[in-house]
Each structure stands twice: as C-alpha cells, then as structure tokens.
C-alpha cells in the first residue's frame, strides 16, 4: 500500500508557493516546504499562522488557490484519491467516532481503505494491542479518557500503513502526563520509519519529536532548518536564576550583562518571580553564570533551564512577538468550536 516516488528520491512531501485566501485573510501566503522521507518535520507557529490550513490542503480537504503540493509523488489537486491512500491524518479535528466502540472505529476505517473483512478485523485487533487499548476495545470511544482517545486517533491513522502521517497539534489540550504518553507513541511510530508532518505551537513538542523545523507566521515561512540550528539561532536555552535576596536581582543582571555571558539576546529581569533570565548556548555558559554569581558573593536559591517559548523564538527570529490569532478565518472559527 505504501508507495514512494522513486524519481523524487527521498522527498516525501514537496510544497511550492502554496496560497490560500479566506476573503481578505491570507491563511497561506506562498509557503514552500520539503519533508524528507523518514524524518519528522515540525511546523511551528501561533494560532492563525496557517498550520491547519496547510494540513487540510495536504490531506485534500481543502483546495489551494495557487501553488503546488505533492505527497509521496501524488499531486494534491489532480490525484486526490491516490494521495488519500498513502496518508494518515490525526489532529484537532479528524477524530474518532465517539459513539462507536474503539474496535468498530478501526474496523470501519480498515473497510473504507478496502481491506478484506478478515484483514480489517486482524488490523483492528493488532493496532488496539499496540496502542494498549485492547481492554477498552468494546467500549464506546465517548467513555475514553483524553489520552486514550488520542491513542485511538493515532491507531486509526495507522490502519492503512501510511507513508506520510500528519499530526495536527496532537497534544493541544492535553495534560502533561497524557502529552508525554502521546509523544512516546509518536516516537515509536517514527521509529517504524513513517514520515511525519507535525504542527505545533510548542517549541518543547517540536524539540521532542521533530528533526527539522519550519517556523510559520501569518501564512509565511519565516525560518527553516535543523532543530539544533534554529535553537542556536534563538539562543538555545534560557537559564533562570533566582538570587536568595530579591534586592540583588538588578545588580546580578547588570553584572551578567557586563560579563557578556549570554547567547544572542541580553538578560532580562522577571521581577514578578524574582529571577534573571539569561539566554545561553552551552553548558559552559551555564557554569560561568553560576560562578559569576559566586564571584559576586550572591547566594542563589534556584537555577533552572527552560526551552525558549514560542514567543521568544519569534522575538529572536522576527523581532516581533508571535502574532495574536488573526481575523477569524473559517479555520479559526472551527478551532474555537473544537476547543
């Protein structure tokens, strides 16, 4: 069932100059993207950046206004049926049928993918087992927990052994434990060699799952590259240090600025939490910050590192904050309904 374009070699998804407008709003404004076979491409951006529109076009749910896109060699506009055979879709919207038991959900999709009855049954059993849902096989999906539902959703998208899997904000709205659970499942699927296009609003999620990253904003690609490369560009991690004496907050920040032990950005002071934020690029810099504090005779009560937030990524890439959700596009309206 899995067919890979021989001529295009190792490129699983190719997007060229993709445009989609909703009236005045440009959901996609000339997007280029390439996903190599067997890799996970993270598409990072705020609400309304055009991520979902991109996924909907790549899964033939939406026709582009201009541009081209091929998935596993099939054109999204001209060969939608063949394309649908090689993709799997899991996301905010494409969801499971809550009234049907888990097993019936998977069996139905197997039959719709033209598996013979026997194979559809076997595949449903196999995937329930794999996603640890065998015990809940006969219960309606409406009775599942959030994590179980996402797992069933993932299982459903794997029935046809897709060459390319779209994960549209797979953990939005999940609690941290369930989120880790979903991440583990996705990592296992990636281990099996499936190509993934992941959209997310979280740098952390991108770092966990993606090997390459495309940052989008207002329908445009604003940065693309390996995840380490981009992390270095935005200052790697953020070190949060807290002096035991709040009065020493500003002296500490000033001293660290003077020493120049920072990544690309300068230090900032978070007075609310009584901490200094230092963008750093390496463990050596982390150590240097701590010893600088020691050198100044400042006692630290806590030190922690954080990945840059989406806002910080945007700030360093574009000089402005992640845009607030744009004018309501049809996509946005649906998001509000779904959440």
């Amino acid at each position: 069932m899995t067919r890979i374009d021989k001529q295009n070699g190792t490129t699983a998804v190719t997007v060229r100059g993709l445009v989609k407008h909703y009236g005045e709003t440009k959901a996609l404004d000339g997007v280029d993207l390439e996903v190599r076979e067997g890799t996970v491409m993270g598409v990072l951006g705020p609400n309304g950046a055009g991520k979902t529109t991109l996924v909907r076009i790549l899964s033939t749910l939406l026709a582009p206004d201009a541009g081209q896109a091929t998935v596993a060699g099939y054109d999204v506009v001209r060969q939608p049926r063949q394309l649908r055979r090689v993709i799997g879709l899991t996301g905010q919207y494409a969801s499971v049928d809550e009234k049907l038991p888990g097993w019936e959900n998977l069996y139905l999709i197997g039959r719709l993918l033209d598996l013979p009855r026997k194979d559809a049954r076997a595949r449903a059993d196999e995937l329930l087992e794999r996603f640890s849902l065998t015990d809940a096989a006969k219960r309606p999906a409406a009775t599942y927990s959030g994590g179980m539902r996402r797992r069933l959703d993932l299982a459903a998208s794997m029935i046809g052994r897709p060459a390319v899997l779209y994960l549209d904000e797979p953990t939005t709205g999940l609690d941290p434990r369930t989120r880790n659970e979903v991440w583990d499942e996705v990592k296992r699927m990636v281990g099996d060699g499936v190509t993934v296009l992941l959209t997310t609003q979280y740098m952390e999620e991108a770092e966990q799952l993606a090997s390459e990253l495309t940052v989008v904003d207002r329908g445009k690609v604003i940065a693309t590259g390996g995840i380490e490369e981009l992390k270095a560009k935005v200052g790697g991690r953020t070190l949060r240090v807290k002096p035991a004496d709040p009065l020493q907050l500003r002296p500490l920040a000033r001293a660290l600025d003077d020493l120049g032990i920072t990544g690309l950005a300068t230090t900032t002071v978070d007075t609310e939490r009584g901490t200094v934020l230092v963008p750093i690029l390496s463990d050596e810099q982390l150590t240097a910050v701590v010893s600088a504090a020691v050198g100044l005779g400042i006692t630290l009560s806590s030190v922690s590192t954080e990945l840059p937030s989406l806002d910080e990524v945007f700030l360093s890439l574009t000089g402005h904050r992640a845009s607030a959700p744009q004018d309501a596009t049809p996509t946005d309206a649906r998001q509000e309904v779904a959440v």
Partner: protein
Amino acid sequence: MSAHPSPTTTRDEALGAAPSATVTTPAADTPIPLRGHLRHTGALIRRNLLWIRQDPESMFDAVLMPIVFTLLFVYVFGGSIGQALGGGQDEYVQYVVPGLLAMMGMNMAMGVGTGFNQDFNSGVMDRFRSLPIGRGSVLFAKIAVELLRMLVAVAILLVVGVLVGFDITNWGGLLAAVALAAAFGSSLMWVFLTLGVILKNAQSVQGMGFLVLMPLQFGSSVFAPPQSMPGWLQAFTDYNPLSTLADAARGLMVGGPVARDLWVTLGWTVLITAVMAPIAIRKFKTKS
C-alpha cells in the same frame, strides 16, 4: 513528476496538446470501482446502525411519532372531520392513516440532516473525507439507514392504524403506497443533507426543516380534505407533493382515483432528487 509512469493516454495527449504539457501533468486519478463504492457504503451503513444500537433513544421519533399522531388525530379530530366526510370516526381512520403514511415519509427525512451536521462538527467527516472513498458513499449510507428508520415508523403506524380500526383491504396497494412514500422521502433527504452540510449547527437544520415542513404539512390533504379551504390554498394543495402523496396512498390503500396524484408525486420525487442530489454531493465535496 508523476509517481507512476502511466501507459494510458492523458487527456492532454488525446486533445493534441503540446507534448511538454503531458510531461508535467501527473497521471490521472484512479477511479473507484463499483464494488469499492458498495463496500464503502456497506461499511458506513454498519456504522450508522451501530449508532442506533449505541443510542436507542435515537429511534424514539420513529416509534413514538406514528403512535402519537394516529391517536391524536383519530380521537381528537376524528369525530368532527369524520362527520364532514359524511361518516364518523371510522370514516376518518380510513382517511388519515394513508395521510400519516405520507407524513412519515416527510418527517423522517428531516432527521438525516441533523445527524449529518453533528458528524461534521465532530471531525469524523474530515477523517472520512481524507480516505480514498467516493464522497457519495457517506451520503448514500446515511439515506439507506434513514429509509430503514422510515420503514420502522411506517410499520408502527400500520399496526396502530389497524388497532384503531383501519382496514387493510389491498396488500399490493399498501406496498405500492409505502414504496411511493419512501421514494418521495428519500428525495427530500437530499434537501436535508444539503441543509446539514451548509448550516452551522443541528438546531438551525431543525429550525429550517420545520419552516419548510409546517406549511407543506398543514396546507395539504394529509389531515383534512381541502374542500373547505379557500381557493388560493386549494390551488397550493393541489400540487403540494404531500397532498398528492397522501391522495395517491389513499387511492392505493383504500380505493379511488390514483393516476394523477401518482404522477405528480413521482414528478416531484424525480425533480427534487435531480436538483438536490448533485447539490448535496457537491456541497459535501467542497465543504471546508
């Protein structure tokens, strides 16, 4: 560009376009064979039936509507309308049961739109539409199960009808009347499927449905003979498909003239289906 070197002639070649055009044009999309359509529709019918099993309350309308309407009309209005008909309650039973049969065909059609609308809002439809199935399969499966619900409602109507005194004299005519009601009902389902796709939520589908159904229902010969209605209303009832369906059903089940009403009803059925089915499928395909 093309994934599979295709030996088949592309349309551009057939039209004698420049050869360069055929190089960049990917092979045409593969059509779905008839067996595939049947398999997909069958799988989706199974899904819709499982819905009913999971949620038996969804059959309430099919079970209760015929009971409530039959008892209401026979015992509340039956005496007086029956007198007008030149008989009594018994006379009215013979009149109203075929009328209610026509009404079942119409009312059960409305449910198809609301269920469909819920599918869209839950995201299940996105999953279906991202699968390599004919877009019509989802609609046909919905209609098939809705017809089944309609038949349940009709069966209950007939049982209650017989209990309150309806005489079944002509079984062949009865079957023909049921088939006609089902055919007309399925043509209306395309209307409600279209509403289900284009309207935002199930409530608006229902609201719009009532708006269309109420005048059709009461401006008809379903519950009472239109002879006492004003002339303009009679002109409307003459061609109101619900009237002609009810009158045709009367003719077939009880006796009397059939031909004109039968043809007008069939005409409506074909017309509504021919106009609305393509619109429903098109709206379904392009819904974003």
